[in-house]
């Protein structure tokens, strides 16, 4: 920490979204600047989004009509496994970490992360983890046991290609990168804030990252242990998960979901943070119930470790266990619901600007609530027994992953893109993208609820021509291609914006937090001096000193102490 001045920093070029600059790619590879590393995380995420998207388009083509033989069953298994694994570990996680690495230091008035070289290490381990996972295609076959890779299908006897070994190695690498990044975030947030910023004035995105990083530290070791055991099983013939050798297949499920359920909150809590920035800015109101947003985030993080068995209701653990985890799963819906009402109340009475970022935020409220409701139905054990491993699950998880995580990332992208690139994307095309993507998403996944209720199992490579199945699957495939077209449009919008978009002002949205006090894009050194922080909206206080939040609190006769909710 003391030798922070010794870290070599590029001096000439400013970091921006475009990969070309005068020092070439070497400057990016050797960079320890948090903004450049953040941008590299985001480009990595886009790259893998395209790859995993193509994989699932092939899968959807195979499923478009009954009794199709477009793909061989082995290829089909590899494609859906790689799609899930990639989307979660190498699209959602790097995108979240990209925004975090870029914006946490800016939002707390710091000039870099606490450990800049560790930050670069985290990115490159994630990068090589993903590369290792994809190397399996050339090494003799990709992993083919689903993204959660159940025993005994993940054992050598059932999957003798080296794919699952690469799955273990790749995810171990990426997992270590995730853990070191989280350590870095916590230390940065706790020790590198501008001195006037108390924890009660932390931007909510930063609060969610803080909570989330503890969640990562507690959840990922379980996955790493499981992966290490699986590698020992496959390489040294240990018997952890091989039932023939006396091991336990259920143990894999316990270890995996003890990680896996917190993981779904790991990819949604930062998103809640992004929305808690977007809603107030575009409603021109302070967030409703700052304390409740933070408190419910902590509640989610704690409850996240008490719900993993709801992925395993069908394994026969007994009524007592099922009852306990059904209750806890219903319970964890409550703090999430609290947040939905926080955002609704923030919008209520506000003067709302329907920017693309805000459109995604509003769409999120609807789609994520649908995903939440279908999720709640799984907490009820008999319904779970009926619907588990059907397309209803596929529909549910995509409503929360796309309608939640991806919408949040896109909302954050359109919110922060002018800051990161110094350019404004085309508004008209961006709105076209929004509507195309939302339409494609709903066409793809709404019908899958019905398919699941009709009993279509997930992960089957083809299906008989039962009444209704063919047409619903065809609709779903058409929707998937619509989404793919929309993603193509998004990439076009971004590239055009980077090349010849209108120049962005430092504060295009009239926003509240410190990152908007810098130039767009920020210079290599984020801040020479930071404006005083006296409330949760320091930049607004600075722009409107007569109407500052902290003055409203100070003159409020009903309270002698500052309002803990920061309203």
């Amino acid at each position: 920490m003391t030798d922070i001045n010794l870290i070599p920093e590029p001096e000439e070029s400013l970091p921006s979204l475009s990969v070309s600059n005068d020092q070439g790619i070497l400057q990016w590879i050797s960079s320890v600047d948090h903004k450049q590393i953040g941008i590299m995380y985001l480009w990595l995420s886009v790259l893998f989004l395209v790859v995993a998207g193509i994989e699932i388009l092939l899968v959807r083509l195979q499923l478009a009509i009954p009794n199709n033989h477009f793909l061989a069953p082995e290829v089909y298994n590899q494609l859906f496994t790689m799609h899930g694994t990639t989307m979660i570990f190498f699209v959602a996680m790097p995108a979240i970490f990209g925004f975090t690495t870029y914006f946490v230091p800016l939002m707390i008035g710091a000039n870099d992360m606490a450990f800049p070289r560790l930050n670069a290490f985290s990115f490159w381990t994630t990068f090589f983890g993903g590369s290792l996972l994809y190397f399996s295609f050339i090494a003799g076959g990709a992993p083919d046991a689903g993204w959660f890779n159940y025993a005994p299908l993940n054992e050598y006897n059932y999957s003798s290609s080296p794919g699952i070994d690469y799955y273990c190695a790749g995810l171990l690498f990426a997992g270590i990168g995730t853990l070191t990044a989280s350590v870095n975030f916590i230390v940065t947030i706790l020790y590198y804030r501008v001195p006037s910023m108390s924890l009660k004035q932390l931007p909510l995105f930063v609060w969610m990252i803080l909570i989330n990083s503890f969640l990562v530290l507690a959840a990922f070791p379980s996955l790493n242990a499981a992966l290490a055991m699986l590698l020992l099983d496959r390489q040294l013939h240990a018997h952890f998960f091989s039932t023939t050798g006396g091991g336990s297949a259920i143990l894999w499920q316990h270890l995996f979901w003890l990680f896996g359920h917190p993981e779904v909150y790991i990819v949604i809590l930062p998103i809640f943070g992004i929305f808690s920035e977007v809603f107030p800015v575009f409603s021109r109101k302070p967030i409703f119930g700052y304390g409740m947003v933070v408190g419910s985030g902590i509640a989610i993080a704690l409850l996240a470790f008490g719900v993993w068995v709801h992925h395993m209701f069908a394994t026969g653990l007994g009524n007592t266990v099922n009852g306990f985890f059904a209750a806890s799963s219903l319970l964890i819906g409550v703090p999430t619901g609290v947040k939905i009402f926080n955002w609704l109340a923030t919008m209520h009475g506000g003067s709302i600007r329907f920017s693309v970022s805000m459109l995604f935020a509003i769409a999120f409220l609807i789609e994520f609530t649908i995903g939440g409701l279908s999720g709640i139905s799984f907490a009820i054990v008999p319904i779970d027994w009926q619907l588990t491993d059907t397309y209803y699950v596929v529909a549910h998880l995509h409503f929360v992953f796309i309608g939640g995580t991806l919408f949040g990332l896109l909302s954050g992208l359109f919110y922060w893109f002018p800051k990161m690139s110094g350019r404004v994307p085309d508004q008209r095309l961006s709105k076209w993208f929004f509507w195309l993507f939302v339409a494609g998403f709903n066409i793809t996944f709404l019908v899958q609820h019905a398919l699941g209720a009709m009993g279509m199992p997930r992960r089957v490579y083809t299906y008989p021509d039962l009444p209704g199945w063919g047409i619903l699957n065809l609709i779903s495939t058409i929707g998937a291609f619509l989404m793919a077209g929309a993603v193509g449009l998004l990439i076009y919008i971004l590239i055009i914006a980077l090349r010849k978009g209108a120049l962005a002002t430092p504060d295009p949205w009239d926003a509240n937090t410190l990152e908007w006090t810098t130039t767009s894009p920020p210079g290599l050194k984020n801040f020479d001096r930071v404006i005083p922080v006296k409330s949760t909206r320091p930049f607004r206080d600075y722009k409107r000193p007569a109407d500052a939040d902290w003055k409203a609190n100070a003159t409020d006769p009903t309270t002698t102490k500052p309002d803990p909710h920061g309203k």
Partner: protein
Amino acid sequence: MIKLVVGTEAMFFLALIMAYIYFSLLPGFSPQQADHLDIRSTAIFSAFLFSSSFTFWRAETNFKKGKMTRLKGWLLLTLVLGVIFLVGQGKEYARLLRENVSIGSSLFGTSFFTLTGFHGLHVFAGLVVISIITALTFMGDYDRSTSSVFGTVGIYWHFVDAVWLFVFLIVYVLPHLHKITC
């Protein structure tokens, strides 16, 4: 920072220990455990590891007081004690392998070698780090320094010791007590 690292490492070992306990409750596990493990020799080399925590603590104290000669002594002693532990563990592994207990031989072998192996790996990593800071101490890097490195390494080293305390209790002592009472 190191506390966060140790916290996440603790979760990792918790997963391994839970797996060990889970398997140890299955039939056929405990007779093997009783037959193959020798609590006496393990207790001896465990004592070396436990005392290395004490010596490292002495090193930290002397560093704070600026007594560099004593610091060097305690660091070297810590290294020796840690190495003796690893040698002891190596001998135990060699004996087990001669008795045809390996990671692939049975559930006991699988969970025993994984748990103690990962712990041994952590001891080894700790020894590498301590060797580095010992070398740096001899080169005079920490003279009149306020470096936090000894405190940081100390937290890790004590953690590795504490993990062994649990492993030793669960793998060696509890089954032994069970054997005596039966």
